[in-house]
Structure formats: structure tokens, C-alpha cells
């Protein structure tokens, strides 16, 4: 193998990109833009899916909601004991929660206030939310709250501060901040205000025998489906959700959202391939003549294809690298301009950053998609021009 010959061809390929700058840029710029668009979408989609997967560890095995007049409503605690008696059910914990439409600095935002029964909640095992500062609530705590990142940011609250909450529906309350969640599962915690069950009841006007839903913990997560089935069978006026179903819902939603972008990306990629192909066809007279001249000088078709593919490889790697880097930076910046679309719930999470997850597999996939088609597209015209007689190629 003549390494020196290959090095000569590669150096010439690199030189050609410099010689034909306009042509190189005409291919590289659209490629970089496409790779930027597809990579930021891939990274943010990966971020959502990763968070959804992480959050699954924090969810109860089964959530039971009450149905009133065909809609989700309050649930009576009367069925709590009956659910507790179902085989494989370990604990049943009531929860009261609701959305808080609030105005902050003339901006309409929406948070979630959630009341939990800490006396019966095994949160050391099932809610391992790590705290950014302060601590979690303890059984018996009243008028105390743990805030999500976004809420703390909006209220400019720190541990020890007191916050007054008054939603636009007239519900009022004052709480001392004892802890702030970190960003481990921002999708779930950023808009959250966790208080005691009693405080939540008081805030939303629930009586002692009512809850928003019941959190059912089983002796083994694998039994969740069976328990859910038993609850559905026993109680007609309930809506039963397993943690698996809830997580899949989130993953599917973001997969579809990602799918939208991927479809866009695919269209763009096809567009650029057509652009490259059209350009190749357009300049094919020049390329054919050049290839004919090179062949007349004693170049072999394989050497010409190698040089053309090397040009595309350099172009593809450069364009893809720039695109991935730009996409990653754009994702880290919170996808300005389209974060609302990415999140799909911007009014609920006014300070919610788009999660970003970048892994080796995604990067390899992006490089394969960015570089391989370029190389194939460039090789075909070179091959077509290379297999005809040099005389014919020159005369073309």
C-alpha cells in the first residue's frame, strides 16, 4: 500500500476545499445548519427522556384518582382502607394537590401546590429528591413548604423566608420555606410547592375525608399492574394510573415532539442532499472535464474517487462538528425562541430550562448521518465521470 500516494491525494483533497471555497461553503453551511437543528433536538429530547426515566423512580407504583361526573375530581378516603386490603399493597397515602394560577410581575404563571401525608409516606425510599438547600418536610410540620427551583426563583425565596401565596381563584396561604429542590428532575419539581396534607386541604378547601388522589405503594413494583387491575375492578368511579404508564406518557410525548423535529430534520437533510446533488449535476461539466484531464494525466478512477470522497469526508466532518457544537450550545442556552415548543408547557414553567442530554451514541449517529450521505453523493458523480473514456469526459 502506497501510503505516500494516499497522503498526496488527501492533501490535494484538503487543498481543493480551499481552492473552491465558494463551493465548499455552499455545502458546508447548510449541512452545519441542519446538523445544528437536528443535534439540539436530539440532545433536548434525550434530556426529557432521561428526566422522565429518572422521575419514574420517584413516582408511586399506582395513582388512584376519583371520577366525578365523568371527570377527574376529589376522591373519598373511604376507599383507602379497602385498597389497603388488596394483596400486594403495602401502603396507601392520600395526596391533595392543585394548580395555582398566580400573577408575578404582571406575568401569568402556574404552579402546583402538593400536600403529602409525611407520616405514612416512605419518602426516604420512594421520594429520594435531593435538596439544593434546606431539608424536606417532617411529619407534623405545618405552614412550611419545600419549593421547586422555578418557584424559588420566581419568588426570590431562600430557605428561612416566608412566602405569601394567593392565587387568582382566591386561595391564600403563608408558608415558611424549609427547603428547595435541586434540578435532578426539573420536569416534575421546578413548579412544585410541597406542603403538609393538612395545609393543602386547608388551602384548597378539602374536608378531612377527601383527597385529590391516593398513592398506592406495592410490595414489589412488578405487581403494580395487577394491583391497578384489582382497583379498577373494585372501584368503578376511579381512574387508575401506574407509574409505568405515566412515564411512558411523558416519554412518548417527548418522543413525538422529537419526532416532529426529526421529520423536519429529515426533510431538511433530503433538501440538502438534493442541493448537493443538484450542485454536483450543475458543476458536473467542470468536474467531468477535470476528471477527464486527471485521467489523461494517468490518474486512475479509484484515485479520483478517493480524492473526491476525502473532500466530502473533510467537509462532512467539519460541517457536522460545527453543527453539533452549535446545536449543543443552543440547547444549553435553553433553545431561545422555541423553548415554548420544546417544553410544551411554558406558562406552567416560566423559569424552566430545557433539559439537555448528550451521549456518545447520539453524536456517532449524527456523524454517520452527516458524513456518510455526503461521501456517497460525492462519489457517484466522480465514479460516473471516471468510468467513461477521458476523451469523452474532457469533451463533455
Amino acid at each position, binding site marked *: 500500500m502506497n501510503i505516500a500516494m494516499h497522503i498526496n491525494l488527501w492533501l490535494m483533497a484538503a487543498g481543493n476545499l480551499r481552492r473552491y471555497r465558494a463551493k465548499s461553503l455552499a455545502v458546508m453551511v447548510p449541512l452545519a445548519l441542519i446538523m445544528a437543528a437536528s443535534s439540539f433536538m436530539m440532545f433536548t429530547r434525550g434530556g426529557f427522556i432521561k428526566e422522565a426515566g429518572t422521575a419514574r423512580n420517584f413516582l408511586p407504583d399506582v395513582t388512584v384518582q376519583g371520577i366525578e361526573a365523568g371527570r377527574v375530581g376529589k376522591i373519598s378516603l373511604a376507599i383507602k382502607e379497602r385498597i389497603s386490603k388488596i394483596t400486594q399493597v403495602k401502603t396507601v397515602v392520600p395526596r391533595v394537590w392543585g394548580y395555582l394560577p398566580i400573577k408575578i410581575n404582571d406575568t401569568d404563571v402556574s404552579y402546583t401546590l402538593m400536600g403529602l401525608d409525611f407520616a405514612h409516606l416512605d419518602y426516604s425510599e420512594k421520594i429520594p429528591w435531593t435538596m439544593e438547600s434546606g431539608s424536606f418536610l417532617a411529619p407534623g410540620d405545618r405552614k412550611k413548604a419545600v419549593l421547586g427551583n422555578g418557584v424559588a426563583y420566581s419568588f426570590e425565596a431562600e430557605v428561612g423566608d416566608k412566602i405569601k401565596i394567593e392565587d387568582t381563584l382566591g386561595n391564600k396561604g403563608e408558608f415558611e420555606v424549609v427547603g428547595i429542590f435541586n434540578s435532578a428532575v426539573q420536569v416534575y419539581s421546578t413548579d412544585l410547592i410541597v406542603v403538609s396534607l393538612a395545609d393543602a386541604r386547608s388551602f384548597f378547601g378539602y374536608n378531612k375525608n377527601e383527597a385529590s388522589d391516593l398513592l398506592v405503594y406495592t410490595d414489589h413494583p412488578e405487581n403494580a399492574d395487577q394491583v391497578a387491575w384489582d382497583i379498577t375492578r373494585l372501584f368503578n368511579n376511579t381512574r387508575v394510573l401506574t407509574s409505568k404508564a405515566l412515564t411512558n406518557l411523558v416519554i412518548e410525548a417527548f418522543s413525538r415532539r422529537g419526532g416532529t423535529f426529526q421529520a423536519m430534520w429529515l426533510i431538511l437533510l433530503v433538501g440538502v442532499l438534493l442541493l448537493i446533488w443538484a450542485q454536483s449535476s450543475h458543476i458536473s461539466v467542470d468536474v467531468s472535464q477535470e476528471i477527464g484531464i486527471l485521467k489523461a494525466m494517468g490518474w*486512475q478512477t479509484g484515485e479520483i474517487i478517493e480524492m473526491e470522497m476525502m473532500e466530502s469526508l473533510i467537509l462532512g466532518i467539519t460541517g457536522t462538528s460545527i453543527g453539533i457544537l452549535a446545536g449543543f450550545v443552543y440547547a444549553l442556552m435553553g433553545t431561545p425562541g422555541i423553548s415554548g415548543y420544546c417544553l410544551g408547557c411554558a406558562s406552567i414553567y416560566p423559569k424552566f430550562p430545557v433539559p439537555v442530554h448528550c451521549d456518545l451514541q447520539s453524536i456517532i449517529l449524527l456523524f454517520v448521518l452527516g458524513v456518510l450521505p455526503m461521501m456517497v453523493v460525492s462519489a457517484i458523480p466522480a465514479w460516473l465521470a471516471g468510468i467513461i473514456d477521458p476523451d469523452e469526459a474532457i469533451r463533455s
Partner: protein
Amino acid sequence: MIKLTNITKTYQSGKVMVRALNNISLEIKKGEFILLVGPSGSGKTTLLNIIGCLTRITKGSFRLADQEVSHFPDHFLSALRRKKMGFIFQQFNLLSGYSTWENVTLPLLPTGISEKKRKARAMKLLEELNLETRADFMANELSGGEQQRAAIVRALINDPEIILADEPLSNIDMVNVNIVMDILAELKKKGKTIITSFHDPKTLLSRLGDRTVSFQSGNIAKITDGNMNL
């Protein structure tokens, strides 16, 4: 060295088949200077392209150094061109994006010779043809005569046995005609086999030829030994 027997070459030109060469035979010995003369479209360039392995024959036999090359695969013909042939085109065919020295060293690139050695060899030949000051000029910045001289350097860079020149004097001025004539005379002295075409019988090139082959409508009309008797 070169033996063409009953060569026919047809081209597809749109829907029409054009017979560029019609059953011609010609033998060329090593070191001969052959002049191909005739009007435009008489088949001179086609014959040069066949001998230079730039196009394939339709019928007949083409032997080079006692080997039938008409059926050789493409890569073999490329290797043959690289090792044995130097081609001077009527339109120069320099690559516009490349400098003069890069253009003239193109045939050396796939041989694996380093850039330093390539450039050194190019500079030596460019100097012989008074082009050393134009080495870093882009091809399209050269005058017609300079381009032709650069094309000659490119044809000679591999020190080929056979030099094929298609109307080498047709696109240059008288000063450069004399320069090119001198170069070809020098190459003839060195024992190179030179085959060149021209359509103007009054051209000075005719003084150099060992034999003159006259073409008419794809046929060899006449083969004259020695220079053309103008």
C-alpha cells in the same frame, strides 16, 4: 512500437453515428516524429486520442510495445498513460484552480512523490521553458503561450516515451511557436517518439517530421516519408 491495424472509430453524436476513423492502419517506430495533417474533422485528434489511450477503438487492433492494449481494463490504461505518455492538448487543459507548478505536477501526485520533490522537478522544467517566474501564478493568469508551455512541462514531467501533441501551435503567437518548435526539436534529439497533429500545412512544425500522415474524412490519404515538401 505502435501498430494500428484496420482501426475504425465511431462516435455517437446525438442520434447520428459518426465514423471518425475508417479502417486505417499505421505503424510508428520508437523515436519517430510523426506529423498528422489534414483539415478539421479529418480524424487526426481521434487517432491521437486512440494512441494516447484516451478513447477506445471500435474495431481493429492497437498494439503498443507488442501488446494488444485495445481490450485492457481502465486502470491498466491509466497506468500506461502515467508511465509512457505525455499529452499536450490543443486547449491546454490546465486546471484553473491550481497554480502553474501544481498543474504541471498533477501526473506525479498519485505516484506518491513528496510535494518537495514534485516541486523541485517542476521548477527544473519550468526553468528550461522560461516559466519559473510564473510557477505560483494561477493557470488562468498565464498568457496563451505560457499556458501552452506549462502544458508541455506537464506532459514531460513523467519523462514519457511517447509525446502526443494535438495542434500545439494553433493557439499561440509566433514567439511562442518558435519556443515550442525548439522544445519539440530537443525532444526529438533525445529520442522521444512524438506524434503531433496540425491542420495548417504551412506550419513550421512540418520541418521536424520524419513522416507525414495526411488525413481526409477519417481515412489516411497519404503517408509521406521525411518532411513535408512545402
